Each structure stands twice: as structure tokens, then as C-alpha cells.
């Protein structure tokens, strides 16, 4: 199990450029451990871009430069000696569309541990059961572990992807609009899962759904790109309840009351 109080991020003056185009600039904030932090803002304001900085998935897109400092539990994750492979064991990600691998449910979840050297069958069995339980899928999935992952419903597939990400015991789970492709019932299940998980893992979730952010997050960061020429910036970050009841920036208020975006 993960120790208490690990999996916190500190971002200092973070900026991201695609080629010469600066997409996000000047983001400074903290992500507290074992809590849900929501990134909200209109589409195109750099939420996914910022999220991908936290597990260095931006490194896989050619021509992306990340500026500023990002520390995970005090250590700079962009330092030379940090290997992105090791970082991604600690920081998992769930994507917008469910993206199970074309293999069995079991093999999907065992993929991460196998990649990092776990071969023992009993150990893998235990990891699969534990991960599925944490993703609230064990009850349904234990009878079809050997089935092809594509036979699952969309909501089940997304919870499978959560289980798959949990299988390497990450300290942090990044989620990029994980419910936006799902029906309301599946969305509810994902939200319940997130509520269960936040005691053991730090969650950073991008959502375009403000009600969702208000329901599930402890802390909210609001991003905005005010003109197409200027890069996106962090407008306000704080306790979710405060932000939704008493925002300190007029732009935040305008956004959460639905006046733009």
C-alpha cells in the first residue's frame, strides 16, 4: 500500500510550448496528496496539456518544451536523472475514451506489472484481484477475467482502464475527462470509484463538467485562454467549495455561472 502523504505535486511557473507556440504559461500551484484536484476551463485552455506534464507524456509528442519546475514529493520530475518509465509507474493515467488493449481482461491489468518484471502467477493473480476491487469492477469481472476486454461495456472498459492504471500501485492517478464518453449511470460509477480511491491515491482530474468538479473534487484549478494570441493561464486555484460559492476572480465567477465557455 502507498504511504500516507505521498503523491503531492508542486508546480512552479510551468509553461508548455508546441513548437514555437506557447500553449500554457505561468502555472504555479500545488496538488495535495490523497485528494481530488479538478482542472476546469473551456475547451482548448490547456487542461490536457498541463495534465500530460505530470507524467511527462508530452515527451512523446515531438517538439514539446516544458518550462518551469514540477516536483513530485519534492523531486524535480524533469531532472536529467529521472527516467520517464519510473515516473509513470508512480503516476498513472486514464484517458478520455476507454482504451483497453486488445487482449483479455486479466492480461490488460497484468500488463503494467509484467512490464515492470512481475512474473509470478500468484502475485499477478493477487494484483489483478486487488486492482479490480479498487476500481469497483471485481464483482462483475471475476467471472470473465479470460474474456476479451472488448466484450465489456463502455463503462466497464473505463473501470478496467482504471484498474489497469492502479495495477502498478501509482501514488497519483491522472484522469483526462474519464467519463465524457460514458452514459450517466457509468459516469456515476466512475465518480463513486474516484471517491473510494482518493484515500489511497492522489487524483488529478480534467473535466469540462462543472457539476462533476463540484461533486467530486476537494480542490479546483480554473484555467483560461483569454485571447487566441496569449497562452492559457491559471486564473484561480483553491478549495472547491470556496471556489464554487465564493470565487475571488470575476472570470472564474463568469465561467462557473455559465456566462462563457
Amino acid at each position, binding site marked *: 500500500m502507498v504511504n500516507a502523504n505521498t503523491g503531492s505535486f508542486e508546480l512552479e511557473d510551468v509553461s508548455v510550448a508546441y513548437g514555437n507556440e506557447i500553449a500554457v504559461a505561468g502555472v504555479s500551484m500545488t496538488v495535495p496528496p490523497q485528494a481530488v484536484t479538478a482542472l476546469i476551463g473551456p475547451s482548448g485552455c490547456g487542461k490536457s496539456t498541463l495534465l500530460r506534464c505530470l507524467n511527462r507524456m508530452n515527451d512523446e509528442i515531438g517538439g514539446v518544451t516544458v518550462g518551469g519546475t514540477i516536483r513530485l514529493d519534492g523531486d524535480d520530475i524533469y531532472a536529467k536523472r529521472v527516467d520517464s518509465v519510473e515516473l509513470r509507474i508512480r503516476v498513472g*493515467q486514464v484517458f478520455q475514451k476507454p482504451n483497453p488493449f486488445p487482449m483479455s481482461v486479466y492480461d490488460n491489468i497484468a500488463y503494467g506489472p509484467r512490464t515492470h518484471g512481475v512474473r509470478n502467477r500468484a502475485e499477478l493473480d493477487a494484483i489483478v484481484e486487488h486492482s479490480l476491487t479498487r476500481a469497483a469492477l471485481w464483482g462483475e469481472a471475476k467471472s470473465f477475467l479470460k474474456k476479451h476486454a472488448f466484450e465489456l461495456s463502455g463503462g466497464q472498459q473505463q473501470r478496467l482502464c482504471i484498474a489497469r492504471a492502479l495495477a502498478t500501485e501509482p501514488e497519483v492517478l491522472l484522469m483526462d475527462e474519464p467519463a465524457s464518453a460514458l452514459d450517466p449511470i457509468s459516469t456515476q460509477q466512475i465518480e463513486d470509484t474516484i471517491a473510494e480511491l482518493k484515500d489511497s491515491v492522489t487524483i488529478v482530474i480534467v473535466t469540462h463538467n462543472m457539476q462533476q468538479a463540484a461533486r467530486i473534487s476537494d480542490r479546483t484549478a480554473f484555467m483560461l485562454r483569454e485571447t487566441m494570441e496569449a497562452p492559457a493561464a491559471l486564473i484561480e486555484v483553491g478549495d472547491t467549495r470556496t471556489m464554487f460559492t465564493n470565487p475571488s476572480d470575476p472570470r472564474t465567477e463568469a465561467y462557473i455561472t455559465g456566462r462563457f465557455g
Partner: protein
Amino acid sequence: MSRVKRARMMESLAKGIMGIATLIVVGIALFLLGYLAYRGAPSVTWEFLSQAPRKAMTEGGIHPVIMGTVYLVLGTAAFALPIGIMAGIYLSEFAPRNLWTRLIRLAITNMAGVPSIVYGLFGFALFVMSMRLGVSLIAGALTLACLTLPVVITVTEEALRRIPRELRQASMALGATRIRTVRKVVLPAAAPGIVTGSILGLSRAAGETAPVLFTAVAFFAPMPSSPLDQTMALPYHLYIMATQAVRPAPHVVWGTAFVLVAGVSIINIIAATWRSAQRKKIKW
């Protein structure tokens, strides 16, 4: 007449013309295969398939000719598949997208457009003469491999491009390296497309005459016992019997043509059926 009615009429007319065009294509194909079967199938007996030619090829079978083509195709596969598949994977998954790789792709496309007789001349100059392989099974297989390479590279790239980017991201986000992602996730999913496309490319090589003309074949040769031996081959056998045999035996000519086309068709049909069965199992 109202505009809507006119539009409807134009639509039916266009559909009709396109339907007729399709029928013509189907008709040509059916006539070709039907005539070939009508003329060739009766001579295809067990004896025809299992015995060597006798009496200047007017009697006996074409067993060594069939085996020559089988060996040539296997040799071609041995060279073209590993190199072509690896190059396709590199271009699709690892190569940067810049001017150089664009030029390389352009070169590969052009390679596919070079007439096969040019491959024959090239193979003769390089493999037969410079590399001193002589007119041999291996020189022919290498020449056919050059012809098949662009096909294998292209089908590999295309099969890999069909795999959603999200799968690669999921694997990388789990801390897998790019090479492991390709090996464990991308390649298995793309394998049906790569295998089938490559088989279609190889079956085209099986029917080629020009590339083996100067590099591998002989009018009459026993079954090759080493890669450096000359060999007979179905398409060349057909060509030489139809144009130069002293007294061509029509049933042998048509039988040979039928064996070549039937063999290649059966393999193609199996490959295509397998691929669509695999694709039905994995739908994105």
C-alpha cells in the same frame, strides 16, 4: 418535370451506369477464370502434379516446375518479410517525420512502380554477375524480394497506422518503452493486416516471369537440390511453352496456367478470409 424528379432520375441513371461498369469487371473476371478452368482443369490429375515432364514436356507432369515456384516464393519470403516488416515498423513507429523520411517513403513508392523486367536486369547485374551467385534459385529469390519489398513495407505501415494512437498512449502511460509497446500491443493487433498483405505481395511474386528470366530459371532443369541450382518455375514454364516449344502440348500449357492461378487464388482467399475474421474479432 420537377427538380426533385429530375434529381431522382439522374440518380438512378448514375447508379445504373456504375452498376453496368461493375458487371463488366465481374464478367471479365468470371470469363477469365471460367475459361481457364474449362481448358486447364481436365489436365490437372495426380500424375500431372506429382511427376516430372517427359518427351519434351508433351507428357508427364509439372512437379519440378511447381516445386521451383514454391522454393522461389519461400526464398523471397525469407528475404523480403524480415527486412520489409522491420523497415515498415521503423518508418511507422520510430522514424521522425521530416524531409528525409518523406524522401524515403517517396523512394519506396517509386520502387513499387518500377517495371518487373527492370528488376530482372538489376538482379542479373547485381546478384548473378557481381555477387557471382550465377543463375540460381537464390539469385531469383533475391530479385523477387527486391520487387516484393515495397509491398511488404507499405502494407506493414498501413496495418500499423490502423492501430489507434490511444493504445500506444495507454501502454506508454504504464511505463512501457516504445519498443515494448510495439512488441506487445501494436504488432499483435496489426499482425493480421501485415501477414495478409505480405501474402498478397508474395503471390504476386509467384506469378512474375520477368524478374526470374535472367536470374533463376532454365527451360529444363531437375528439381533444385541447392540454392545455387537453376530451377524451373510456373510462369516462365508457361511463357516458354506457349512461345518457344517445338510442339506445344495445349493441355500442358492450360494445365500449368490453371495450377498457377488456382494455387495463388487459394492462398489469397485463405489470407483474406483469415484477416477479415481477425478484424471482426478486434473492432476499434
